[in-house]
Each structure stands twice: as C-alpha cells, then as structure tokens.
C-alpha cells in the first residue's frame, strides 16, 4: 500500500485529503499518475505542484520511486502562515 496525501486545493480536486493505493508494487511517477483520474493526473504534472516522499521534498518529482508503506504528498504553492 502507498498512501497519497493532497494538500490545499489539490484535496478538492482529488475529492479527499488522502487516499490509499493498495498493492505490493513499488510505484514510479508514470505508473502512479496512470492510477488517478485524468484531470487530477494532469494537474499534478504542472510546474507548481511539488511532491514529497516520506516527508522529503523531491527535487525532481518524475524521479519518484514509492515503495510499499511510503507516503507521497502533493502540494500547490504554500499560502504561508
């Protein structure tokens, strides 16, 4: 299982703040996107959306490799405190 977390307005688009992808596979960026609704997948590919794996922001989100048990978070630009 890989847990996906959506922050800010991405949560509205995803329809939930988090979702689980069941299975024992390691997910790469393209295979992960293929499992999501097309409009959500398209937004996540946008320049402004950043990705963290297990709490570490990825310099290049397309290099994502999410092993089972990991958490992948997607976020739009922060609006600050």
């Amino acid at each position: 299982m890989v847990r996906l977390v959506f922050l800010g307005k991405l949560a509205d688009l995803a329809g939930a703040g988090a979702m689980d992808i069941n299975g024992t596979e390691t997910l790469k960026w393209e295979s992960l996107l293929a499992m999501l609704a097309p409009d959500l997948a398209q937004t996540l590919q946008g320049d402004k959306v950043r990705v963290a794996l297990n709490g570490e922001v990825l310099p290049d989100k397309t290099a994502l490799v999410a092993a089972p048990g990991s958490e992948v978070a997607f976020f739009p630009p922060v609006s600050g405190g």
Partner: protein
Amino acid sequence: MKDVRLLDMPFDPAAAIDHFAADKGDAGGVASFVGKVRPTGGVEALELSHYAPLTLPGMEALADEALVRFDLMGLLIVHRSGLLYPGDPIVLVAAASRHRRDAISAVDFTMDHLKSDAWFWKREKRSDGWHWIEPREADYADIQRWQ
C-alpha cells in the same frame, strides 16, 4: 532558547509573551508580533492546513536560522492550524535579546519567512463559500529583503 509550537486550538498571545519573557531576565528587551484574522473584508472563517512531516520541522529550521543570524536569548514561534474566526490570533513571534535591534530584526525576519515560506495552505470562507488563498506578491518581496 527556542520554543516552536503548532497549535490546533486558540491561544492567548499576551499570556504566551509573558511566559516567554519571564525566564529571559538577562535580556534587555523583548520584541513581539501578533497576527490575527482580520474581521474586515467579509471573511467569516479561515482554515489553515498543514502537513505534519514538513510544517513543524520547517518552523524549527526557521527558528534555528534566526538564532544564527541574530544575537538572541530566546525565540518563540506559536502558529495556529485548523479553523479560525475573525479576531483569532494566527501567529505569535517573540524574541528576547540584549540589544533591541536583534530582537526587532529577528521578529521581522521570522514573520517574513512564516508568511511566505511556511508549509501552510489557507482557505477563507466568504458569503459565497470557501476560497483557497494564493501566495501574495508582497510576501515574496518581503522575503527578498533578507537575501
């Protein structure tokens, strides 16, 4: 020295400043800033979401940076998450130092970075529903003062 809190419940800034200052007897001064939800502009509520693995560690790192940059005897950051209403305190930054310039500058620096750089996502409830808040250009300009 460093006290960083992310709270999902209302807090009392005056009591927090008082408590912070109480054991900073050696400091000549304490500067602080309290930011609140403005009761104007038709905002009925504000929701601040955070992402636990990033938000508090990010605030801790910011506090460490301020402690390196300025000669401080203590730094307090208190930040709300969750649902807030007009008049509620959102953020408190307090800094204690021997000389006032360090305390005032540290508050200024920390606020600028919290407002543009901290891992929060904000939405406002108006009469026509909820609206996500995009980063403000002015906030980016503020942060560049320190670079």
